[in-house]
Structure formats: C-alpha cells, structure tokens
C-alpha cells in the first residue's frame, strides 16, 4: 500500500536520512523503531510532505505522493497522527474531530463517523464540548487518534503515541491501536516504547542514524540480541 523508495532527506545542508526504503502492505501493522534522533519522525514527516525528500520516491496506493501538495494526501487516505498529539488546544473535542473531516467523503460522513469515534472512545463523548487543551494526556491521545480516523484513512501513521504518558495510559493507547487494527486499518507506527510496539506489530524496521539497519518479523526482532541490548535494556 505504501512504498518508500531510496529516500534521502536533508535539514538545510545536513543529511538526516540516508537511502531509506521500506514498505507497508494492506492490513499490516508496521513499526519503525530506533533511538531518539535516529530519524523516525523525520521519515513520517517526509511521507506526509512536511519535509521534501532530496532523492527517492514515495508511492501510496499507486500515486507518487512526494510531488503532491502536502494537504491533499489526506484525501488519498493517508493520515499522520503527529508526535506530541498536536491537537488544536483552544477548540473543543468535537471541533477537533470536525477538522479531521474537511475533505471529500469524510466531510459527507462526518456525523456518522463522529458517532463511531464516540462509540470507540466513550470518554470523548463525555467531554465533547470541552477544550482539547484541558484534556488529560491519555484523552488527548485518544482524540488525536480519533481525529485521524475521522478522515476515513486507509493508512494511519502514528508518531510516538505513547509519548509522555504514564505506563497505565500507555497500555490503554496500545489497546486502542489494537482495536483500530482489528477493524482492518493499516498502521505505520513509530515508537520508542520498543517492547510494547513489537508486541502489536507484524513487521518492524530498526533505524539507526538515519539508516535502516535491520528489518524483519516483529517477533523475531524482539528476540534479536542486538535489539535486546540496544532498545530493550536487557
């Protein structure tokens, strides 16, 4: 469904991503793991068109998307739930969800979809008129995921969904991701919480210093000595 082909990315004259290629198939949960600063978020930002790749192509659902306007990707069915959630803090929960469905079919189905999201996250229904900035961290993450789902995506990219959450909430977030996945969503997830991520992913790529150094089935990677030593702290 998504294919990233040999991309190089620069921040001004500094290269941060080196010849990275990977793919995500329909129905899969794929994880990008690696240390802070390894370039995981940059890859997601490149796919969403916030940063242009210097070389290489990104193909989504048959379209070469790195030449398209970044705001039009969501209509193709690609949504990026950004790091640190990035809600619109001075807007209500409901308005945040509305912003997720500004285009195409998603706009027509807004009402039905909203009900579906509220069913999925009853907490959000209780707080629908509250400002997003006043939600707790866990609720904010649910809203961020909900806002992403409102666009009726085919592929959802999650950037560090467990960031800054207490362990108990982290579990909750991963439960939500599993639920989303069980509804047939394809997911590309970036996480520093390696252990839990590998537990829910089908496949994973390990990123170090802007290069992919390993890839394989999530279960295999979880047992790999290098991964264990570097990321699982064992």
């Amino acid at each position: 469904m998504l294919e990233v082909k040999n991309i190089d990315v620069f921040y001004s004259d500094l290269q941060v991503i080196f010849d990275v290629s990977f793919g995500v198939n329909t129905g899969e949960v794929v994880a990008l793991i690696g240390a802070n600063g390894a370039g995981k978020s940059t890859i997601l930002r490149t796919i969403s068109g916030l940063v242009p790749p210097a070389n290489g192509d990104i193909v989504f659902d048959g379209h070469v998307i790195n030449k398209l306007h970044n705001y039009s990707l969501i209509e193709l069915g690609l949504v990026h739930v950004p790091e640190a959630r990035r809600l619109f803090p001075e807007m209500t929960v409901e308005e945040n969800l509305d912003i997720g469905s500004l285009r195409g079919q998603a706009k027509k189905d807004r009402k039905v979809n909203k009900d579906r999201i509220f069913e999925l996250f009853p907490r959000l229904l209780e707080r629908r008129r509250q400002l997003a900035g006043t939600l707790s961290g866990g609720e904010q993450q649910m809203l961020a995921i909900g806002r992403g789902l409102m666009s009726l995506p085919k592929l959802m990219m999650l950037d560090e969904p467990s960031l800054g959450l207490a362990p108990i909430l982290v579990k909750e977030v991963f439960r939500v991701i599993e639920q989303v996945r069980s509804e047939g969503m394809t997911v590309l997830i970036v996480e520093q919480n390696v252990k839990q991520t590998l537990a829910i992913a089908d496949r994973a790529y390990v990123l170090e210093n802007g290069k992919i150094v390993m890839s394989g089935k999530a279960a295999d990677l979880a047992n790999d000595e290098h991964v264990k030593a570097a990321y699982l702290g064992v």
Partner: protein
Amino acid sequence: MSILQVKEVSKFFGGLAAVSGVSFDVNENEILGIIGPNGAGKTTLFNVINGFYKPSKGEIILNGKSIGGKKPHEICKAGMARTFQIVRPLRRLSVFDNVLASAFLRAKSKAEAEEIATEVLKFTDLYEDRDILSKGLPLGKRKRLEIARALATRPKLLLLDESFAGLNPAELDKSIEIIRNIKKSGITVMIIEHHMKVIMSISDRIVVLTYGQKIAEGTPDEIRHNQQVIEAYLGEA
C-alpha cells in the same frame, strides 16, 4: 559532599505538574544520569535548576547557597552551565566566536578570553573547525560546540541535555571520551540521556523520573534491576 541539592522541587504549568516533589543530591565530581521516558519532566527539571523557570515549590541549593528563583545568568555565574536538547548555537558566529562569547564571562581581558576559548576548543576537539560558521556544522559537532560553550564559562557543575541523541557511533565514542575527561578535570556532570547503553556505562549514579516524579535513584546496576524502573521505563520484563 554534595555540590547541588534539589529539595522537594515542583513545577506546575496551569494545573499540571511537570515536575512534582523531586529531591536528590549531586555529589562533587560525579556523573549523575537522569533518565525517564519522553515527557517525564527531565528537561523541565533542568530548566528549573538553571533558572529558566521559577520552581513552584521546593528549594535548590548550589554550593551551599539557595539559587531557586535566580536568573539563569546569575546561576551560570555561580558555577553552573548547561547545554540544550535542541542545539542552539549562535548561528551566524564562527565556532570560535561562539565559545569566545561565553569565555568573556570569567576573563578579564579579550586576550584571556581567547586563551580560554582556544583551550576549550582543543579539549572538545573542535579547534580545527574554529573558523566555520556554527550553522554549517554537522549535528555531532554542534552538540560538542554546545558543551564547549558551556565549558568556557568555567563551571563547577555542567548540565548536559541529551548530548548523545542522534550521534553516529564514532561521534558517540568521542563525546563519551570528552565527558569522561570533563569529569577528570574536576567538573561535576549531570546528564539527561536516552541512550541506555551510554548512560549505564558513564554514570556513577542515576535518577529515574516518570511523570514528573522520581521513582528511583542508585547506581546503574541497582537501576537496571529495579522492578519499578523496569515496569515504568525499560519495559516489563
């Protein structure tokens, strides 16, 4: 003998506690690591200690003197320097001028400041790059430049915020060596780090924060086997 005492320090933003009731001591000439998941309040803690934020509660004592609520430049003068997680070189100045600007803090003349800057640049292995504009430096060297700039203020205590993030293995080794040398030269180091391998090997003691609270403190070995830490941070074993 402790150089820095953090006593029951809390910092609230709105109603949210970014740091709550954290206490620990930093002993003279040790390397103290601070770890914890992203958003655990580590950088906020640094910002409180170095004076960017006023602590909402609690006391911070540097060398026997309370510094809570003092301005960053006063705290720096009192002997504490820091680096930033997102590197902040003075972009349109050369590497040398970057360090020179902070060397003026202790120097009595320009010549003396230049001497300090030269010495610090050699120490951090940046002397070759001294004429390059700092915005053109690669990340690894920029991180080192930050350390150099902090060292030029002649601190007794150095706060390093993620000085290893995003470095390649060669740069990593270089930075580890530099930090060990800093300790050897008699400066106490407090370091926030994600890179577990590095922090475990370099620290004398480690403080673990999650959710703004300290959940453990001890030697790397103790931390590695602390059940609470494993659950909250390292992942359930």
